[in-house]
């Protein structure tokens, strides 16, 4: 046989052995894998890490989180590259479900965004409502030379929230985002907080990341406004629709969702970070919604994060798992 052909055969064989070997090891000798795309801000808090450990202690499933921006996370889910989606952007989630790519949405936790800023509070927003605080910041910004607002500017859930708030306060986002006092980080929550810290500017942040960095001593910003309806932040999990994306690990996604809404996990969510930060970074939502109490927070969640009056419209539920929605 021609030597070249022999060489080609050997080379191809060894390559296949290495590639195939690592692939086989990965797919068959390790446990089943479940891939969840999520947002960087949620990942940054470390909650998902804790959840993963608790989950893997109970189930022989290898959990993997892909922390990208909200937009990216949804895209991955739409492409069927991941098995489930864990984000905090109800408007985007609605679009996602309406696009037919998702199934079995469950709201699992909530916390509040907070408007933080320099200790000196130059725009004197302390105690104001969200809308008036924003107005004060804009006025301050337009009458001074320094940058007084930092934004994530990256299309994340936090950024989307910020845009909604600007609209509520009556501002044209495209217009103000290019004014001299408005600084866009185009990056993660920690990066944005660091930038705000540097500039002595205000910004909107999720409590989790803010508390973590604050405790660390990385930043010295103060939280001025929080726990209002406008700043509600709701986290939901959605499985990727198996009918449309037959290759996803749907059954295990449901197992994961079940785990998330279980008492054990909900307790974990409530407890997370309490020791270090002195307060909860997240609040469990499942029990609250189940009880359907008339408390203010439930009302806020319903207004903000429900779709057509429910956390998951029936057309997006999987009839095989009615127990998810009692």
């Amino acid at each position, binding site marked *: 046989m021609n030597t070249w052909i022999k060489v080609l055969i050997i080379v191809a064989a060894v390559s296949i052995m*290495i*590639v195939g070997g690592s*692939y086989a090891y990965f*797919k068959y000798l390790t446990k089943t894998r479940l*891939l969840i795309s999520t947002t960087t801000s949620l*990942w*940054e808090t470390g909650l998902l890490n804790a959840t993963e450990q608790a989950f893997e202690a109970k189930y022989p499933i290898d959990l993997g989180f892909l922390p990208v921006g909200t937009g990216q996370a949804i895209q991955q889910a739409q492409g069927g590259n991941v098995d489930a989606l864990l984000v905090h952007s109800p408007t985007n989630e609605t679009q996602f479900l309406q696009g037919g790519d998702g199934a079995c949405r469950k709201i699992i936790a909530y916390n509040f965004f907070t408007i933080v800023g320099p200790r000196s509070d130059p725009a004197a927003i302390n105690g104001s409502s969200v809308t008036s605080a924003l107005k004060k910041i804009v006025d301050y910004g337009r009458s001074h030379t320094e940058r007084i607002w930092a934004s994530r500017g990256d299309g994340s859930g936090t950024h989307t929230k910020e845009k909604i708030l600007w609209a509520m306060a009556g501002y044209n986002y495209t217009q103000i985002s290019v004014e001299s006092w408005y600084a866009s980080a185009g990056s993660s929550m920690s990066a944005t907080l660091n930038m705000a810290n540097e500039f002595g500017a205000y910004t909107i942040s999720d409590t989790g990341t803010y508390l973590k960095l604050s405790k660390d*001593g990385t930043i010295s910003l103060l939280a001025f406004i929080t726990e209002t309806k406008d700043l509600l932040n709701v986290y939901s999990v959605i499985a990727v629709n198996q009918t449309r994306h037959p290759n996803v690990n749907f059954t295990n996604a449901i197992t994961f969702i079940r785990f998330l809404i279980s008492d054990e996990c909900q307790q974990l969510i409530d407890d997370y970070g309490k020791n270090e930060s002195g307060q909860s970074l997240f609040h469990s939502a499942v029990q609250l919604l189940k009880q359907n109490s008339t408390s203010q927070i439930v009302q806020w969640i319903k207004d903000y994060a429900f779709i057509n009056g429910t956390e998951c419209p029936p057309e997006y539920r999987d009839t095989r798992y009615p127990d998810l929605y009692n």
Partner: protein
Amino acid sequence: MGIWEGLIKALQLIFSGDPRIIEITLRSLFVSGSATIIATLWGIPIALILGLKNFRGKFLVKTLSNSLIGIPTVALGFFLFLIFSREKGPLGFLGLLYTPTAIIIGEAILVLPIVVSFATTAIEAVDPEIANLARTLGASESQASFAILREAIDGILLAGIASFNRAIGELGVAVFVGGFIAGVTELLTTGIKLEIDSNNIDVAIALAIILFTVVFGINLALNLIQRRRK
């Protein structure tokens, strides 16, 4: 935590043999190492052809190979992501996306031009009469080619080391086809990004130190070999 604190904690992590750090390091070494081996396996025969034979279009092939050396890793990474995408990609059915295997394949493709270019140069630097010498001593055609290869071994070694260097330090391919899923596809490079995002500055610094040490070691080996040749 500040950089100093992070640095101290990073050193503690490294010297205490923190399992997470070890896992990430081993995975990086395995992935980039496998990629280098595969690229070398495929690259040497190609280099032999380019270095020894003349054919129409040879000039173009060589130029192509040389220009592919500098391909931006994000471009290649994104391209492969599209190919491996579970549903829309032509190779999606293999289910390779976000696995270490995909990174191996991607990095192998990335460094193949490096192997080909370095090895071709090394082979061309060998006196072609060596083949005749081997033949007159009784070698067959393939043995004669192998004799040339053996004379070029230093250059080929350099090719392998340079490839490993590029593979282990690259980010674009690993990010796009591997994701940076903690515990699964996290490598030294993607790990640095991930850990910074998670605000684990100590882990990020630890990974950076290790990555730098590995690359430094590689370059040390490179220079030692070059010295030996003289």
